[in-house]
């Protein structure tokens, strides 16, 4: 046995994280909600729920439904809005020694730009995570993240509006994710996180109604993990910037799959609902795995896929 504990720290978008494990946006509130279960100082980063320029009401109820080894959600990006976030949520982060990634979105290019600008002078926010899985209301609802040109446009705009490290989060609902990944890299992304949820639907057969009011919702959870691992594998090969792997991570073994295909860090989403302390178990499990395998640095494992 290795007496020294293996190094877990990784660099993402120029930020040193104490370990590669962080929550996925929208599944961990603003962090504070989980403080009774998780010592936030043990996480690699905190990722906020998606923020928008104005407070957003979100979708009607019901908003969630369970599916086989997955869940659908159509929260509708409900959030307090960027100003309330800065005023009411950020002060809490001063007590936490963990970098905060602010996830945000917009319905127009201008909105994206404006949110980015308002986060410039917020010292509590270390980096931006740009969610491009949102419909562009001005361009007929086409999702920013499914068109490489629209994706590049929003990324360069945000890039100019705010100098903080910029992570761009990709949608999996595309024919070729590497095209989008390359477009956002060229436009200035410092890192890429993927994947967001797959669009899905479930029906209550008795009432003949969709199980969620919005009809379709985002599928997350272990069901989607193979799709996520595949996409992360593809993106890692297509770009030079670090990639954060997301999708169905429940255990350390799941997280390791992403790291082995080359993800520099991972985000844990749905698992937080099932076990509020899931991320801590994942961090401990990764450390134990490294020790078992005789590796003294997690960076030896990252991208170690044998093909």
């Amino acid at each position, binding site marked *: 046995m290795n007496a020294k504990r293996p190094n877990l720290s990784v660099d993402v978008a120029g930020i040193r994280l104490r370990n590669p494990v962080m929550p996925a946006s929208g*599944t961990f*509130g603003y962090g504070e909600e989980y403080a*009774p279960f998780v010592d936030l100082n043990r996480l690699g980063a905190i990722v906020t729920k998606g923020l928008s320029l104005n407070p957003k009401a*979100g979708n009607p*109820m019901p908003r969630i439904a369970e599916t086989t080894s997955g869940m659908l959600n159509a929260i509708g990006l409900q959030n307090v809005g960027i100003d309330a976030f800065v005023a009411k949520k950020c002060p809490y982060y001063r007590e936490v020694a963990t970098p905060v990634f602010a996830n945000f979105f917009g319905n127009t290019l201008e909105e994206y730009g404006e949110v980015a600008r308002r986060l410039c002078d917020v010292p509590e926010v270390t980096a931006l995570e740009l969610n491009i899985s949102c419909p562009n209301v001005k361009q007929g609802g086409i999702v920013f993240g499914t068109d490489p040109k629209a994706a590049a446009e929003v990324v360069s705009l945000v890039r100019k509006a705010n100098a903080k490290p910029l992570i761009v989060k990709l949608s999996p609902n595309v024919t070729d994710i590497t095209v989008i990944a390359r477009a956002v890299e060229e436009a200035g992304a410092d890192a890429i996180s993927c994947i967001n949820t797959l669009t899905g639907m479930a029906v209550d057969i008795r009432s003949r109604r969709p199980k969620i009011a919005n009809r379709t919702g985002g599928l997350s959870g*272990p069901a989607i993990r193979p799709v996520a691992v595949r996409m992360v594998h593809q993106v890692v090969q297509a770009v030079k910037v670090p990639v954060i792997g997301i999708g169905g991570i429940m255990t350390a073994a799941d997280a390791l799959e992403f790291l082995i295909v080359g993800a520099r860090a991972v985000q844990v989403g*749905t698992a937080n*609902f099932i076990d509020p302390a899931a991320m801590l178990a994942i961090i401990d499990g990764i450390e134990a795995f490294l020790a078992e395998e005789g590796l003294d640095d997690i960076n030896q494992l990252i991208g170690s896929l044998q093909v």
Partner: protein
Amino acid sequence: MKNYQTIILSNQEIAPGYWRMRILAPGFAAVAHPGQFVMLRPEQPLPTMLRRPFGIFRTGCLPPECSGLPPREYMELLYKVVGQGTRIMSELHAGDRVELLGPLGRGFAVGDNACAKLLVGGGIGLVPLFMLAEALIAAGHRVRLLMGGRTRDDILAVTEFERLGVETYVSTDDGSLGEEGLVTNVLERKLDEAPCAEVFACGPMPMLAAVERICSARNVPLQVSLEAHMACGVGACLGCVVKGAGHSDQRPNYLCTCKEGPVFAAGQLDWGRAAASGEGCAEGGCRQ
């Protein structure tokens, strides 16, 4: 609020489709308030994965045993088998491991109002009323339980309420137990008899909407306990929202059932819409 990794002490069918599960939970009783709930999950590989929300029926303590077993604090659920998750729960045995997150949410507010306390339960909606009854009786209040169900099989635990000293009035849709008809008819009658009252209700949404109409028409204070599909139970996912009073798309007023509820003062909620929607719970979202 704690995440217990604990075991089942017993799990028994008490009426067709209704089960009572006793779970070892040291320290739980001291922090649990009437009307709070837990998120539960069997600790075994399962195709379902989200925890299920359940009201806290009661807490208690097993005395030490001759075998030397020390006293054991427990909490109890009463649950109805409705889908895959509750069916799996009903197949668990004493000794099986479960994960229990709780107590969660905001329970009933027990103020100093001296009027008679009317507890209105519909079916499994009875669950959060038992600890409330215990607290009210302990505080010296006169407590009546109006318990409604579809048939006699849906009328649960009434004798346990009676043992506390609660006056109980049972009604069933088919008259198979107690009075025939809706529990709301009984409520109207009781309020007409003695208008100085405070009402606490839990049950299906149409029942709650009717209770709300009855109480607001008479200016009787009302608290209701709601249900909503939940993922996290702690206010993080925003899956469980209901529309609060004055909610509009322009000025959203969302409330989290899990964190700002499950018990709400009737005045906090948007009844117009909730009643119209016919959903199993008021509709809406999380106020920030």
